[in-house]
């Protein structure tokens, strides 16, 4: 394989060069996972093919006026305007990225500026380039960038080796951030591979609402089955003592995008990390989530939902480590499948020897709306302490016939009744993390995608 590093230009700190070089060396030695790797058996072939198709080449900056880039840039501008408006109404700080690169003009003016009493959002490329002048950020980045992530993960290795830009979010100790932070990653689908990297350091006792949205416009022309783009984002979250974070990752890119993403959170004593992932786009989406409850009484609530139609594929991979006593984790992942959609859930919970009094719950359900759809579930519990309470369950099923009949008896068509039941099933996996307008927004998005006779996702149509 040929590897291109997404150079930022200018001089770089030595630690960064070493980090990126080591990571690429790891990837070269280990090789990108293949179908024989149990953890990658469903995703490896499509992922490597997509990366090969693009020579693993990272995003280039869209040159203004470049013929192909211009329409995409306009689309990005339209999108950004919409998001910016909404973010403004919500009172959020918005950082907008195009194919992995921060766009200053599409972002809130606060991005890159001072903290202003809330969280500070800085473009990663800028923070790194700045480093000689900005000792504080440099030290922080050197200490934490790559310090949360697990370097065994191929997704992380790829990103660490090749990232060019992303965001650094700093939450001061004790900051009850009223303004949410929104990171929007817009994919033009313009034959690019993007490796955005995000590092969030949430100070002791702080609280933050963080949203990451991966979005794009649907390509107009068919592309002979080639994936238009690969997105490979890695987000590292460090929650210091008693910090609280609510985190949404929305993946709604065009259905030709291959998305290989990872979220890593280290949760210190008394801190609480709550995560919602929603996958509504992409051709192949694999999202790995690893949460390390490394302080006494650390807590996490994890929710994930994927809507998978056509020939699309979604793979959730979670790993929760209970390291210290009294931690709790609660996972619910669901998928709604139609057409020839496929979903995989692999959920590993490790309760380490010292983690007495831990409480871990994991659930995974799949709803199959068609005969061609398929779901697999692999729960893995490793418990090295007797004084724990762990539950897990997994179901795969179709719509409940009795409910369907009840709704039809009241006059709803098979289509309407199925849609209503599918939405009810899906919506449950959106409860427990988000609230208010953001929750409403996601519920509406899901309702729209699962609407009866919806033309946008016509393969959700259900046969009677």
């Amino acid at each position, binding site marked *: 394989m040929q590897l291109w590093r997404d150079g930022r230009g200018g001089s770089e700190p030595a630690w960064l060069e070493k980090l990126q070089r080591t990571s690429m060396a790891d990837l070269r030695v280990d090789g990108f996972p293949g179908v024989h790797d149990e953890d990658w058996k469903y995703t490896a072939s499509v992922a490597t093919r997509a990366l090969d198709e693009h020579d693993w080449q990272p995003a280039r900056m869209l040159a203004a006026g470049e013929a192909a880039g211009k329409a995409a840039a306009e689309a990005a501008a339209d999108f950004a305007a919409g998001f910016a408006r909404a973010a403004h109404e919500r009172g959020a700080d918005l950082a907008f990225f195009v194919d992995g690169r921060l766009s200053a003009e599409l972002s809130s003016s606060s991005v890159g500026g001072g903290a202003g009493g809330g969280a500070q959002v800085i473009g990663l490329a800028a923070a790194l380039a700045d480093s000689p002048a900005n000792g504080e950020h440099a030290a922080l980045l050197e200490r934490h960038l790559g310090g949360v992530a697990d370097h065994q993960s191929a997704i992380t290795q790829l990103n660490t080796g090749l990232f060019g830009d992303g965001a650094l979010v700093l939450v001061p100790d004790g900051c009850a951030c009223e303004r949410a932070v929104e990171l929007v990653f817009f994919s033009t689908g313009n034959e690019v591979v993007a490796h955005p990297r995000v590092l969030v350091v949430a100070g002791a006792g702080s609280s933050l609402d963080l949203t990451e949205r991966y979005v794009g416009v649907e390509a107009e022309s068919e592309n002979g089955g080639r994936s238009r783009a690969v997105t490979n984002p890695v987000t590292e979250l460090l929650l210091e003592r008693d910090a609280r974070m609510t985190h949404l990752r929305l993946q709604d890119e065009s259905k030709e995008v291959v998305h290989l993403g990872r979220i890593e959170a280290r949760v210190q004593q008394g801190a609480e990390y709550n995560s919602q992932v929603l996958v509504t786009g992409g051709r192949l989406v694999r999202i790995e989530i690893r949460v390390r409850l490394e302080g006494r009484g650390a807590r996490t609530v994890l929710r994930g939902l994927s809507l998978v139609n056509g020939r699309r594929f979604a793979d959730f991979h979670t790993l929760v480590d209970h390291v210290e006593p009294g931690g709790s984790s609660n996972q619910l992942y669901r998928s709604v499948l139609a057409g020839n959609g496929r979903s995989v859930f692999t959920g590993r919970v490790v309760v380490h020897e010292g983690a007495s009094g831990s409480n871990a719950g994991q659930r995974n359900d799949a709803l199959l709306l068609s005969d061609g759809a398929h779901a697999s579930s692999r729960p893995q519990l490793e418990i090295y302490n007797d004084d724990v309470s762990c539950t897990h369950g997994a179901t795969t099923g179709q719509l409940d016939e009795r409910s369907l009949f009840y*709704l039809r008896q009241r006059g709803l068509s098979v289509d309407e009744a199925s849609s209503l039941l599918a939405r009810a099933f899906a919506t449950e996996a959106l409860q427990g993390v988000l609230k208010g307008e953001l929750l409403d927004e996601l519920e509406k998005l899901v309702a729209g995608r699962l609407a009866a006779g919806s033309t946008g996702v016509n393969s959700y149509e259900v046969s009677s």
Partner: protein
Amino acid sequence: MSLLSVKDLHVSVAGNRILNGLELELEAGQVHALMGPNGSGKSTLALLLAGHPAYKVEKGSVSYQGRDLLDMAADERAREGVFLSFQYPVEIPGVSTGYFLKAAVNAGRRHRGEDELDAMDFLDIAREQLKLVGMDEAFLHRSLNEGFSGGEKKRCEIFQMAMLEPRLAILDETDSGLDVDALKAVGSGVNALRTPERGMLIITHYQRLLDYIVPDRTHVIMGGRIVRSGDAELAREVEQRGYGWLEEAAAASAA
């Protein structure tokens, strides 16, 4: 022309013959009571008329408003005015009662070429009807039947019936498990719908609901057939004497 005409109906479920040559005529404007021992086929008839896919017609015919009812899908029957108050209403988590019912009401209105109700109009009407069955508006926001008490489920069925204004209403033991107030509420819900163009089939084990809704006819079903029909008096007789005497009479007539 009868509203509902059932002729020589033989029905099986899971390979077992349950209805054996059932005959029933229900005129518009009439209320009929249907009584019979446990397992005699009352719910089978009700679910078959509603179009449940598990019930298979082996023989016979059912016409509704002059059309072949058996030729219509369950949801089409509903939109054409057939309503079943279920003996065991299904709990459907995550589907709000109000949202669902508005969709159901509008499905019927679309079918009849009427304008759909918007949220405000729907709410106005729903409030009225909730009052009729003694339910709180909060039920509209709850998941359909989920966690409802037995009586609340039955009231909710009648509330839905009142909202949907069916032509043919089949009430399958809607009176079972109701307290006295609920029984009155169900009675007044039914009587409010008692108009010359509607018909109702009330399946019950007890006379007490029939004190509020006096039926025009009473039928007794045993072994999947109507073995005796009469007026409101027959229901009282059944309550006093049970079914044994009818069994003997039926056996005698069959012999």
